[in-house]
């Protein structure tokens, strides 16, 4: 069963035909080549596939593409303004918060959702916000510092 959906991804309007069982993650990665969104588990446990759906972070592996009908999606590819990186992207780079980088896109989008909602979170609030995004490399220390650096601006 195929459905026609309309949605906005990174500010661009799309009209797409999608199968009913296709996930938003598959739509982004396989159909639209937006491979910045990663799959770490496929069961909503690791947060690597986090994208913003109407400004809220969701695990794209648990969202069906048809559920995104009429919604606005932001992926990691939609964050930079031309050559200028989003402050969170720049802070992650400058603070050494990126190692293997596989959790990075989801981590940055979760942090963006937090800061859009609350520009001045405390450290425990940051840690709670990113608790659904697993990182095996960094021990989170530099990730938290990077987010705090942007928050304090």
């Amino acid at each position, binding site marked *: 069963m195929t459905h026609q959906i309309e949605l906005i991804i990174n500010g661009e309007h799309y009209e797409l035909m999608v199968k009913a069982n296709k996930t938003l993650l598959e739509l982004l990665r396989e159909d639209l080549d937006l491979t910045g969104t990663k799959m770490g588990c496929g069961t909503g*446990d690791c947060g690597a596939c986090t994208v913003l759906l109407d400004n809220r972070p969701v695990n794209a592996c648990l969202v069906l593409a048809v559920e995104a009908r009429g919604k606005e999606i932001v992926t990691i590819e939609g964050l930079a303004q031309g050559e200028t990186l989003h402050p969170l992207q720049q802070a992650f780079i400058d603070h050494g918060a990126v190692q293997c980088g*596989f959790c990075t896109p989801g981590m940055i989008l979760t942090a963006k959702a937090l800061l859009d909602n609350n520009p001045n979170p405390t450290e425990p609030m940051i840690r709670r916000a990113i608790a659904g995004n697993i990182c095996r490399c*960094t021990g989170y220390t530099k990730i938290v510092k990077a987010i705090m650096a942007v928050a304090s601006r």
Partner: protein
Amino acid sequence: MKHHNYSIIGHRQPAVDAASKATGQAQYTVDIQLPGMLWGKILRSKYPHARILNIDTSKAEKLAGIKAVITHKDTLGKKFGFVRNTADQYPLAVDKVRYIGDEIAAVAAVAEDVAEEALALIRVDYEVLPAVFDPLEAIDPEAPLIHDGQNNISARLAWEFGNVEEGFGESDFVRQDTFYTQPVNHCPLEPHACVASFEPPDHLTVWASTQGVFYLRNQLSRTLDMPISNIRVIRPQVGGAFGGKIELFPFNVCAAILSQKTGKPVKIVCTREEVFTATRCRHPMIIHLKTGVKKDGALVAVQARIILDGGAYNSTGPVATYLAGAFLCLPLKARNIKYEGFRVYTNKPVCGAQRGHAVPQIRFAIESQLDIIAETLGLDPIELHLKNAVQTGDVTLNKQVITSCGFSECLEKIKAQRSPALPEGKGIGFATCAFVSGATYHLFFTTEAFANAIIQANEDGTVSLITGVADIGQGSDTVLAMITAEELGIGVKDIKLITADTDLTPYDWGSGSSRVTYQAGNATKMAAAQVKKLLLEAVSHELDVYPEELVARDGRIFVRDRPEKGISFAEAVSLAQKSTGGEPIIGQGEFQPQEAKVNLQSGEGNTSPAYSFGAQLAQVEIDKELGKVKVTKMVVAHDCGLAINPMAIEGQIEGSIAMGHGQALYEELIQEKGQTLNADFINYRLPTARDVPEVETMLVESVDPGGPYGAKESGEGIIVSTIPAIANAISNATGGRIHSLPLTPEKLLKALEQKTK
């Protein structure tokens, strides 16, 4: 820290690939999409031990969208293994399956779900065999045999230095314990994956999430019986590895054969369940440990008998068995050491290399026991370590040569950080580590070189660094770019990296045994020095000075005493090329360790060209009612030789501590009759941002004479001391001692109950 007057080295350098990763542009193996590409999937055994009577693939072959189905008949039936002479694993099972997850067949289809559907249509007739899961049962001569042979012992190493019996006789106090460690998974966020593309008549290209492209090529060449020059292995970005992507896996071979059969590229991405159950895990160990000391804490004798639960195949087993014994004492000295290590086959998932490779387990036992001994004798554990600390210039009983050692300085730094009295429910724990900076020998006994680098200077003022090194996310490409930039006096942004492609780059063993900074770093520094020499010669003629009077720094080559007299690096390259009639400005470097012999039988030999050292303090808060442990802070002192990129080293230490925290307190693969019950992130819990402790890192720079700028290991050592530091802190806070990992609330409550009896 000292600053050494380097312009690049020792400064905090953001990773060269961080921007591409933070913007989603970085390409990983799982992101590769090729025209006509098929999805591959593996059919795995559902029994822990069974004979395969028949495999019927006819139904699967008829499924619409299926392009190929293969079984062992489509392979060459060649065994592979991490260590060549103990190879025991087939790409696809020939007659038997030995664990739940063993590979039986593989399919290639137009879509992932079609491939999955085809797996369900393959009929396998099994004759279920008696299985054995407990290593102590498997070691029994009467146990079901898992492989051909006399017994289930996959490796046995034993040696004695001095005489431990005499040593125990001389000791004032002898303590004996048995410790147990658990199976844990690496959990890289990127699942294991590869794409294979066979181009007729005889060329194969493989993109793989791997720690070493040349090692993978070597193994593919042997398993597929193809010359190495017909195989090209490329490493796209790797989403974490931690030792779990160091080997060849059956799915790599299957992807290659499926591509050959279909004429299309084939991609195989492991599911998270497959990563948990059918790649590798850390060796669980049973460690019988006996230590004898003098009243003042001087170590007299250490005896260890270890049983490593290896799972169904050898993997890195002989190496793990060696390393557990080789690191029995380092960073401490004992006068007598006896070791006996048995690695035993069981019908369970395979154990191999993982961050620290067999050393975290043995160090958990030793540091726990030393803590018990110190407490019993009324000694300060830090003083006990200081008394026995290895020093620069020492040669250990097993002939490890200590070229640089900041261990005592680490201990003093940690001692100064120790807070005096702690309130009820809080505790501190102390532990130490030592680790290799790469190996001095080839673990798989091949003739290939260790590390190579080629650097070509370009007339726009940039240079190309060409090396086979496979960065797996730890930041080794950045370190090599920094070394190149420092040597040539240009910026890190001026270094163009061409890495980890067997057709384009010179040989490098890969990211394993914490070797890249030391070994590939030396090769890179040598290559850069050659380029610099060519440039300085050309510039010296132009400026009419001696080459020795010139300095390369800040993008210029100039006279040391008259900095205004000089030319830009780009001009120097053009000048040098002109002066040689257009020859390219190329330097090449290599690294080969001085001593290439470690005797696994005698246990003697220098494991590594240099050793890192560390000490740490864990602070914990305990809820005695619930047995819950919160690690509040970790203070680390680490001798990394010289910190080329302090920010990256902190990152390695913070990552090691988070991983060690999980493996100390809650990570464990729960296996029931060979079946893994928690092969997902909900039931196998990883540390989140809310769980990990605050980390304070102090770097000690012992400046190793052989390391590039004095640098040594930093990626693995600290996980070694993290686990026992937490164990000792729990004991310090509660008086309860837990002898088995993980240190769960249930075990803590039990230990406290026993204490009050």
